[in-house]
């Protein structure tokens, strides 16, 4: 049923049917904006969200219904965000080339998270991660992607994706147990 609905919506978008593209935007923009905010930061995310939907508008003819529209848009958005990081700052390319040479993650025993992890604290700590391991964490732990998919998107091996995820979690643990970000200590 969802597949038929997606194909019908895509078809309406292709023909610029009134309200169709807005329906697509309203359905999917919040998830894609969340993804972009976490990958590139909120300010850039607004511009990127526009680019993502404009790219979708241009490429709608390529959507054949092999996956859901949500999955198709998510892939498009992930690639746009990663391309942005690569082209704009060349940081991700640098990091993906050198992910395995990155300075080691904090020692696993260096502090523990006390109590429940607050979402705001986690968002803040996430923003403090290096772009490479942040991308892996966002795609795996927040968006539920498999390591194989992440490795493909980033152009790294599965093993690098796994090790970066572990590093990201250890860094987050250290950040969340630091006084400035410890749960319940919002300024």
């Amino acid at each position, binding site marked *: 049923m969802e597949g038929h609905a997606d194909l019908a919506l895509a078809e309406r978008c292709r023909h*610029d049917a009134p309200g169709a*593209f*807005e329906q697509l*935007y*309203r359905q999917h*923009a*919040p*998830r894609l*904006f*969340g993804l972009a*905010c*976490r990958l590139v930061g909120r*300010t850039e*995310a*607004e511009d990127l*969200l*526009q680019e993502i*939907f*404009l790219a979708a*508008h*241009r490429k709608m003819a390529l959507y054949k219904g092999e996956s859901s529209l949500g999955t198709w848009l998510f892939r498009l958005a992930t690639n746009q965000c990663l391309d942005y990081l690569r082209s704009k700052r060349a940081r991700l390319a640098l990091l993906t080339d050198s992910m395995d040479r990155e300075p080691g993650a904090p020692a*696993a*025993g260096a502090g*523990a*998270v006390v109590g*429940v*992890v*607050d*979402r705001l604290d*986690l*968002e803040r700590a996430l923003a403090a991660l290096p772009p490479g391991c942040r991308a892996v*964490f966002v795609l795996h*732990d*927040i968006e539920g992607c498999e390591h194989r998919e992440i490795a493909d998107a980033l152009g790294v091996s599965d093993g690098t994706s*796994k090790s970066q*995820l*572990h590093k990201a*979690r250890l860094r*987050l*643990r250290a950040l*969340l147990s630091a006084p400035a970000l410890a749960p319940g200590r919002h300024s």
Partner: protein
Amino acid sequence: MTTCPDIQSRLSEFADGAVTDIERAAIERHLASCPACRDLLQDLHRIRRAAATLGPVAPPDHVWLQVAGQARLDRPDAPARATRIARTAAIGQWAGLAAALVLVTIGAHYFLNTVPAPETTPGNASATPSVEVIAEELGLAMQHYEKAITELEALAKSNSDALDAQMAETLRQNILTVNTAIDESRSALAQNPGSEPARESLFEALRRKVVVLQATVNLMNEMRKGNQTGAVEAAAAFSKKS
């Protein structure tokens, strides 16, 4: 695989359920007698659970307005639809509106491209603009900006019948928010005229205002079905010139 470092390097995958049966048994034996590794595992689970709760984020209203406007411009047949007859007096207003937007952009670019960041490297003082120079350049950029805003606001007011009340209110709120940011940035810059972060903050706020005004233009495009094709063409022409 019995030492803490060995075990800890595998705990993320253990937490994800992605280890073999043999590995899992070895890790579980270690955990039974190691509080530090148990603490780490508990924290990894907490972080995973918290991450799974981070959901969608609602984008600001103006983003859709920009997407809709740009999508319209993107249509291959958009310029072709414009008819000569449709270019009424309203086009003059739209051209003025687009020109004003270009002015705003030029003002911001002018400032960003002509005022270098304060150089902090010792011995390179000649490359460092003085506070007076920065203030002068900033003043010039602000003149461009304010002139454009004044024109834009007048034109938007004369076209206000194109907006429904709810949208007009949304845009008004966006403008108020960005005005507050501009005021705060100006205040910070007044206190420390040489501060690069303060300058960046101000121009980010100015950029946001341009974005909102562009959204206004796009929205009016949407609302004015009769005249919009000419407006699209005019805006596209100005965009190319800029």
